């Protein structure tokens, strides 16, 4: 379908009012990009370091626990430590098992509409903040490669759901303490909180909201989809909160498991 022919012509290049400066804003607009850069850079540095460590990612039966870091679950390499292995393993993989799987959660966050807003502003300065000039002479947005690949977001969402199921499974079996029976430790609560936050981040995603009900033309004709859409809409409104909370907590979960696995910390049993 083509646009309606317009009798009003778009005239380009008229003189614009105001001074030729990047911005006239007087508030501290730069704080938000600085915080975003600081948190995302810290996360990328930590997660890269953790992914290449290839140790201290599993707390096993020797200390009556079954805790695995989310960075290494599912552990799909044949060189995974005993007890951490998933049912299927790539034989001959000699690098860190985390490198096999991290592309999926990373891709989900990288193509997420909220994170796109954040890193386009903070890292790419396109624009750094509202009514502040962007840092590029020309601009093609997400119309060309590689940024047109952002349209694959829903596939990373599907993959993210599979990871959520696995991490939820990890959290549930963490209540089973080998040799002691069922119990609750700080570690089980950490894994459970991590799984809950990841679910909230996933189901509040814009792609989820669209796929579950947003794509229909008539809500009246699709009452179940409408109910799901209506449930997801308020969650979607605070997607940003879930994005940051789940990002920080997944790193903290890895820190906790790492400290317990290395012996630096004891995983206290609550009851």
């Amino acid at each position, binding site marked *: *379908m*083509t*646009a*309606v*022919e*317009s*009798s*009003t*012509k*778009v*005239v*380009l*290049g*008229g*003189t*614009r*009012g*105001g*001074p030729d400066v990047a*911005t*006239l*804003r*007087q*508030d501290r607009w730069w704080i938000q990009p600085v915080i975003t850069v600081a948190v995302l850079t810290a996360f990328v540095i930590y997660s890269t370091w953790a992914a290449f460590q290839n140790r201290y990612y599993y707390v096993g039966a020797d200390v009556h626990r079954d805790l695995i870091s989310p960075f290494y679950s599912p552990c799909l390499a044949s060189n995974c430590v005993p007890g951490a292995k998933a049912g299927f393993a790539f034989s001959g993989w000699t690098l860190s098992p985390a490198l096999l799987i991290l592309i999926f959660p990373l891709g989900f966050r990288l193509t997420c*509409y909220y994170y*796109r*807003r954040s890193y*386009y*502003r903070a890292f790419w300065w*396109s*624009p750094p903040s*509202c*009514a502040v*000039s*962007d840092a*590029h002479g*020309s*601009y*093609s*947005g*997400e*119309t060309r490669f590689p*940024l*047109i690949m952002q*349209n*694959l*977001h*829903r596939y990373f969402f599907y993959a993210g759901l599979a990871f959520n199921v696995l991490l939820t499974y990890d959290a549930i079996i963490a209540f089973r303490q080998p040799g002691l029976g069922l119990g609750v430790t700080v570690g089980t609560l950490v894994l459970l909180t991590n799984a809950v936050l990841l679910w909230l981040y996933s189901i509040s995603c*814009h792609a989820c909201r*669209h796929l579950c009900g*947003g*794509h229909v*033309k*008539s*809500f*009246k*004709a699709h009452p179940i989809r*409408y109910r799901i859409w209506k449930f997801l809409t308020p969650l*979607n*409104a605070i997607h940003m909160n879930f994005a940051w909370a789940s990002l920080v907590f997944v790193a903290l979960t890895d820190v906790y498991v790492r400290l317990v696995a290395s012996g630096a910390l004891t995983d206290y049993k609550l009851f």
Partner: protein
Amino acid sequence: MADVTMRIWRGDSSGGDFENYTLAQNEGEVVLDVIHRIQATEAPDLACRWNCKAGKCGSCAAEVNGKPRLMCMTRMEDLPEGPVTVTPMKTFPIIRDLVTDVSFNYAMAEKVPALLPPPMPEGGYRMFQEDVERGQEFRKCIECFMCQDVCHVIRDHEDNKQHYAGPRFFIRYAELEMHPLDQNDRRELVREEMGLGYCNITKCCTEVCPEHIHITDNAIIPLKERVVDANYDPVAWLGRKIRRRTKRTPAEAAVQPAP
């Protein structure tokens, strides 16, 4: 109350500069009140658009301290201490002082294909409340064009005006796409000709909207997802093939006058 200094852009298409006006600040005033007092006392030739003084006509949009604002809804006491800078909207060509030529938006408005409902059934068209509410948010738009002004796609890149409708019209496209009676398929149009892909969802349009329309979350992103359905999702493509549902051809979806 203390005096306030207003730094106001004065000029036209041949150029301009700031002029300072210092005057007493009265309690409860908005920026537009002060502009009117300057017109009445010091600069009768100061040009600005205004109409309702109630935040409902969108005429008095300008940039106050560098941010797009409705002058009639910006209270002086909410602004930080010091001179208050008032400039015309940056994205559009200046006519004079605080008045800009916003005809770019009228050109884009004319390009929007109209609603195409099916033939009138017996008893008339019926639309249910759930579907009415969804589009109602977009009908709150007062066309102040501050979202267009703040959008960096055209604010910082004049050449993009040729192929970018902008947030105000993306909410119009979204409203029509979500309309249960509409039979047009505008997804290819918004992708190819209206530049939906240029939007990198930095949400500035949502931040400045005086009607608090969730432009990005409820209009632009759903439109982007619909474009993904049509163009970038092989599973959706396969589903359409299996269920023998096809996108409407351009001929089928041709613009027709509303009954």
